């Protein structure tokens, strides 16, 4: 009985801390939401007005009628979908190889690949631009899709760590059963990696979705701009003030797809409980 009460207190305490944390995360976003419905001269009013009077839907209307936001969303979806589909496959395959196969110089190779994260992107921009020009990829979505589809270093590293933690006996057992490496990867390791993959898919999606510099530099045609470039265009009023409500409205729209993906991925976190039971 006593134990139970102690546990309840602890639970309540944890709950309280979580709520406080959640508040600090949420309040700013409520501000974003309320700001996106305000007229711009009311944004910095003191004390802040949480429920805007009047509620002004004009920012959203303006967004959809005046800017390229629809084509921006379309392009971002194309790029992100391609990267997710091909990138996840190729990355998880390489991660599997790095973690479980006997490739010569595997660790050295891995470190080389990892080192590509360390050189500041700033100085690689111009060389990359020159390469993309030579192969005529400028002003297409290809520079945004192909390189990331061939593999994402951070994700590869993560999966390598993760797969490394899975029992090697599985691999050996499957080999004895006469499975090829690809089959082992596909039938055994891929399903086992599901929770890790899901969290990484969200990461990669977000990275691609929120990427700004690449699309801005490599694409010229405003019809091919991705969502982030469209948002940044809204912010680029020369010398005059920024239209804060408009940007908040656009940012909220930009967050939505990631949130939807995240919410729909939630159930996989729970699902994976069953899978882990299989080992041991």
């Amino acid at each position, binding site marked *: 009985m006593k134990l139970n009460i102690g546990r309840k207190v602890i639970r309540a305490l944890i709950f309280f801390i979580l709520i406080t944390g959640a508040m600090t995360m949420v309040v*700013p976003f409520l501000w974003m939401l309320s700001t996106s419905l305000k007229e711009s001269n009311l944004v910095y009013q003191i004390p802040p007005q949480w429920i805007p009077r009047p509620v002004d839907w004009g920012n959203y209307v303006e967004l959809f009628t005046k800017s390229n936001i629809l084509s921006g969303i379309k392009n971002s979806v194309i790029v992100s979908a391609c990267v997710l589909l091909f990138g996840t496959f190729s990355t998880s395959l390489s991660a599997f190889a790095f973690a479980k196969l006997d490739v010569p110089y595997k660790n050295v190779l891995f470190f080389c690949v990892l080192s590509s994260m360390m050189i500041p992107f700033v100085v690689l921009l111009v060389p990359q631009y020159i390469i993309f020009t030579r192969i005529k990829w400028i002003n297409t979505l290809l520079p945004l899709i192909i390189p990331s589809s061939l593999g994402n270093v951070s994700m590869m590293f993560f999966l390598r760590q*993760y797969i490394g933690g*899975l029992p090697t*006996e599985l691999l050996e057992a499957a080999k004895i059963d006469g499975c090829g490496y690809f089959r082992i990867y596909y039938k055994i390791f891929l399903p086992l990696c599901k929770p890790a993959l899901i969290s990484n898919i969200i990461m990669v999606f977000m990275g691609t979705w929120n990427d700004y510099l690449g699309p801005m530099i490599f694409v010229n045609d405003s019809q091919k701009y991705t969502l982030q470039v469209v948002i940044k265009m809204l912010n680029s009023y020369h010398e005059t003030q920024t239209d804060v409500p408009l940007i908040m409205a656009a940012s909220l729209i930009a967050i939505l797809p990631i949130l939807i993906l995240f919410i729909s991925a939630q159930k996989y976190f729970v699902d994976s409980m069953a899978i882990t039971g299989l080992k041991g």
Partner: protein
Amino acid sequence: MPAMVQFVCFFLLPLCLCIFASMTDWNVLVKNKNFIGLGNFVELFGDSKFWIAARNTIYMLLPIPFYMVFGLLFALACHKEIKGNKVFRILYYLPYVSSIVALVLLWKWLFNSEFGLVNQALGLLGIEGPNWLGDPVWTKRMIVIMIAWKMIGITSIYFLAALKNVPSTYYEAATIDGAGAFMRFFKITMPMITPITFYLFCINIIGSLQTFIEVDLFTTDGGRNYGVATVIYYIWQKAFNYSQMGYACAAAVVFGLMILLVTLLQFKLSNKWVYEGD
């Protein structure tokens, strides 16, 4: 392997160009460049601004332990199936997904020294809030707080994935052996999640050392006395504002090597504490 194709075409090739360029006086606007040997490197080591930027960059490592610990705690709480944990997860994830432009506008408003919520709250406690946006020391602290705040959610997602990967049979066995909750945590959970912890350390250190966009958006010219500028910001300015691409490449090579060393060291040390599977 496709990853290798990507590596060679889109990274190695540019990198070589960059290493070559670091020994020239390359200006992007001019077609030909002159070989000047190690001149750029000599100049770099003598440039006080570079060292100021380097110090500021190291400062950006501060939030890592903070959000790693809180991320883990949060993941543990969610793992325990606390009521409403799904909702919490979404809420904690919010900061990470929103576009940085919007976040910065938001923080400028929150940390406004006269009217911002933060200083008003501090005022209620009888503390006079600092000039967050004007004083470089406080701007740096603000950026650190912002990064920590933003990263807790995503870090916990990684930990959560790792926690799910710990076979429940281990716990059952331990419970039968009479191990308490703390015992179970330190003897089973901790070792089992070390690979992910190691990963997070490596990636986050590399990421933090490359902090750039916050500096660009919060300050003009790196803040008063260059007090907020990071190395990447420094390189960016040199490359595109002051047309010294060759010099920027040299700085990038030096900085890249530094990160490489740090990461190598981490890999070396990793044998000591990272659980490598059976």
